[in-house]
């Protein structure tokens, strides 16, 4: 049943220098889908870097090789594989797994061996509060999940006054909901209703009935795709019509939009990355280029998980070029000094490995298309507010 996937990429010719990077990602199990996207993102960067002749480290060209192992979406397996990658495969650096739960286990291992890990898809704040020095995340953290929506609300000419926050009772959604609640109170919004429902509940009509009697003007939801779908459908059935519906996670997922069809219009959410962002950078010029090159390579559209993987690779490359060495301590210093931009977003790390310049953007579904509406500097179209009533 256990299937360790060794995917050693292009073997280096004799005399060439190789940069060996290890990656324990979920290629089977509950995170198989996301893990596959992440792997494709890492591979995209590796192929792009090697096509340009390799990475230039202190005047020498290094070819990139990534060793993949399947952690089966299990934290213990991932930790064990990480140890193996470090001690047996002797990798120089690590690319992190998908999900904070698994990354928490692997971060402890890589820290023990002082091997630098770039983990774009582990955004729980708790990982970065343990004093680890060698874990870096280019993506915005979980606690910032709904903050961009609140910032958008702040920027509206006629601000709403009441807000409700609902979501499943799970680590990531709870962190996001709590941070959103604090910020909403700071902004002077009245939190009229909150609810935490069991994650795999088949029915949300009780939550929506309570929402109806609380009648908030804004509804923020921190749920995963399945329960967000259920929430929206139930709100429509029971005619709950807030002026704004904001989702922490599902807006980025295509089947969320496809399942709902026109019902999804004017719902907004936060997104790590969309192909229409206007950031520019190294190795990959901008998001539009990334989207078309990725599609040509893999015959499907890139997701934010893939984009984050590629960005992680690019940032590591930038640091290696600056440090002019593969010594983790020197690369770490280079990362801390880095102040730049990739197609994925801005980069500036604090000493805990958190990218303080990372910003989620707010995407709203307009006429069936996800459209960036906030921050204003990178938006495509202005936001449609207030939301029309369900038909």
């Amino acid at each position, binding site marked *: 049943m256990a299937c360790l996937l060794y995917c050693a990429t292009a073997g280096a010719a004799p005399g060439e220098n190789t940069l060996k990077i290890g990656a324990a990602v979920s290629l089977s199990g509950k995170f198989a*889908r996301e893990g596959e996207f992440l792997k494709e993102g890492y591979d995209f960067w590796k192929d792009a870097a090697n096509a340009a002749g390799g990475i230039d480290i202190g005047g020498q060209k290094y070819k990139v090789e990534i060793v993949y192992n399947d952690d089966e979406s299990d934290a213990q397996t991932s930790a064990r594989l990480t140890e193996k990658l470090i001690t047996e495969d002797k990798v120089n650096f690590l690319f992190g797994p998908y999900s904070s739960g698994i990354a928490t286990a692997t971060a402890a291992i890589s820290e023990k061996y002082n091997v630098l890990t770039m983990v774009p898809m582990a955004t729980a704040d708790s990982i970065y509060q343990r004093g680890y020095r060698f874990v870096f995340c280019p993506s915005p953290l979980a606690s910032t999940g709904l903050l961009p929506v609140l910032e958008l609300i702040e920027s509206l000419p006629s601000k709403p006054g009441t807000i409700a926050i609902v979501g499943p*009772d799970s680590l990531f959604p709870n962190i996001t909901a709590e941070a959103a609640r604090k910020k909403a109170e700071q902004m002077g919004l009245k939190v009229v209703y909150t*609810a*935490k*429902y*069991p994650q*795999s*509940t*088949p*029915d949300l*009509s*009780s*939550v929506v*009935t*309570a929402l*109806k*009697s609380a009648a908030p003007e804004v509804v923020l939801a921190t749920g995963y*795709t*399945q329960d967000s*779908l*259920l929430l929206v*459908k139930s709100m*429509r*059935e*029971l*005619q709950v019509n807030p002026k704004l519906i904001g989702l922490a996670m599902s807006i980025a997922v*295509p*089947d*969320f939009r*496809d*399942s*709902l*069809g026109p*019902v999804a219009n004017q719902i907004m959410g936060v997104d790590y990355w969309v192909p229409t962002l206007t950031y520019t950078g190294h190795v990959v010029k901008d998001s539009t280029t990334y989207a078309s090159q990725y599609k040509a390579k893999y015959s499907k559209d890139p997701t934010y998980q893939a984009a984050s993987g590629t960005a992680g690779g690019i940032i590591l490359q930038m640091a290696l070029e600056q440090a002019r060495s593969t010594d983790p301590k020197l690369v770490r210093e280079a990362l801390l000094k880095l102040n730049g931009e990739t197609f994925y977003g801005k980069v500036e790390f604090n000493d805990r490995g958190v990218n303080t310049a990372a910003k989620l953007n707010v995407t709203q579904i307009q006429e069936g298309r996800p459209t960036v509406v906030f921050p204003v500097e990178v938006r495509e179209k202005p936001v449609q507010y207030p939301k029309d009533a*369900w*038909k």
Partner: protein
Amino acid sequence: MLSQTIINGLLLGGLYATASIGFSMVWGVMGVINLAHGGFIMIGAYVSYWAFSHFGLDPFFAIPLSMAVLFVLGYFLQAVFVNRVMRTSLLLSLILTFGIDMILINIVVLVFSSDFRSVNTGYSGSSLQIAGTLVPYVRLATFVFALALASAFYLFLRRTRAGQAILATALDKEIARLMAINPNRVYALTFAFGAALAGAAGALASMLFPISPSMGKEFIGAVFVITVLGGIGSIEGCVLAGLLYGLVQAFTSLVLGVNYQNVVAFAVFLTILILRPRGLLGQRFFGEIS
């Protein structure tokens, strides 16, 4: 809000009841706890989705289609696989049906991918307004259909020869044989009908819930509770228990909060088991595993 809660609870309970009847019958008649029941519900939902997305067939018309597909599948599975382990041990039938469930889920993942699907008809979101309470059309229709199916199956069991053969075999297999009833045929038929009812429940559920390969897993917990609560093998019991389950969950959400839904529902379940082990309307000979 109180009347809305009652309506929500009843409407959902009706659907759960239909989802449970097949499971209950199979357990009562054959002594098999069919863990693939959730998978059957899921396939019923996918058949409905497929008919809707390819032919624009309204899900209510897809119910007979789902039932037919699942009937054939159920008959085949019982005759070829389940029959062989029925006389051995309960554990083996649990393992076998668990395995069948996994196979079904993974086949669906291969064919349809694990993307979420949804059936959105024109009347999907609309509701009937009765004195300030909203009764969504889809849920109301699902409820009515669910009860109609339960009644139809009840009449089938009591009034037709095939149905009475099923009840007879459950009561006493050896005597039934003496009455020219072939138990193997009866078992296959029972399993097939159980699957067909699961398929119907799935088709109804496709209108209410997001469809995914693992959606059956969310039902199986409720189905188990409702079956035992109502009395194993009793259709009236399933309906009553289903409605009760829906109401208890809805009221708990109202009074205590959504997290306590399952806690209270299972507490009620345990209480009734302690006070009345055969369930609300169960009879003693069903549920005995021979």
